[in-house]
């Protein structure tokens, strides 16, 4: 149960910037009324963030990862059960390429 000063400082640094990002995205809008175009963009942000994060991360890892991502999407569409979809996706990857 040790707590070292350098580890604590690193954790506090990470916590501080993470909260700054979480709060900052909104704080800007609290202080400044965005033009209509930015409002319209925010309406599209949710899906676009996820797609733009996932696609490069998955595609660069190769065909098995793309297949496993497709399993997660398909399973979620069919069952609407998050936990089941994650397990199915990880299991698919496990079966397709085995453990390293």
């Amino acid at each position, binding site marked *: 149960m040790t707590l070292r000063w350098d580890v604590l400082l690193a954790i506090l640094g990470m916590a501080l*910037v993470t909260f700054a990002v979480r709060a900052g*995205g909104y704080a800007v809008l609290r202080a400044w009324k965005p033009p209509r175009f930015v409002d319209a963009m925010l309406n599209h942000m*949710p899906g676009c963030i996820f*797609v*733009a994060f996932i696609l490069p991360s998955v595609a660069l890892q190769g065909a098995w990862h793309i297949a496993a991502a497709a399993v*997660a999407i398909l399973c979620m569409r069919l069952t609407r059960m998050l936990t089941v979809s994650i397990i199915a996706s990880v299991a698919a990857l496990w079966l397709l390429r085995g453990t390293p």
Partner: protein
Amino acid sequence: MTDRPGNNVVFTMSGFRHGIRTVVPVLPSFLPFGLVVGLESAGQGLSILEAGLMSLLVFAGTSQLVALGAWADPVPILAVTLAALVVNLRMAPMSAALAPWFHGLRGWRLWGSLFTVTDHSFALSVNAMRSGQKDAAYLLGLGIPGWLFWTFCVVMGHALSGFVTIQPGHPLLFAGLATMCALTVTLWRSRADLLPWGIAGAAGLSVAALGLPQPWPVLVGAIAGSAIGAARDMRR
């Protein structure tokens, strides 16, 4: 979208409980990724207290995993802080997109709710907001159980470290991305999403193909996709 101010947003105990009821069935989805982060913290020499503290205070799995990948003794404080900043930048547009709820809050309700924005609580809240829900306590109800359970999973993973090891490239490491894939499905509204999503994906891929690491693909992709969507909406 951001109708303000005081856009009749409320913050009630019943909204909070609704959030808890919604998130409890999906809590197990934190388990694989939390265990991986716990195992990795143990592998990098963090004590169980340090691993738990990181999860409680940072509460952002992918950034924890990436920072742990850069861990050393003594800890490169600036490098891991920067890693967390970069990986978590995608949360800034997330909290901006939830602005219609946040405009109705102040004090601990506002800052506490902002602290609990995650991929999970964001996707679920956007759906509730889009269906006209006005109770912003829903987000905190989703967030607090997720926060506590996430920390529990990481501590469990750390405790298991003597019995289990995880190599780089292990399928369990895919749990984080699998979660995001499944959450994306819930964000689909109609065929009108196809154009912005397609542009977001294509732009993200192109930036990644140029060799730029995250967060550049996600930032460029999200901005390009939503700008195209907004341009189309405003021409109508």
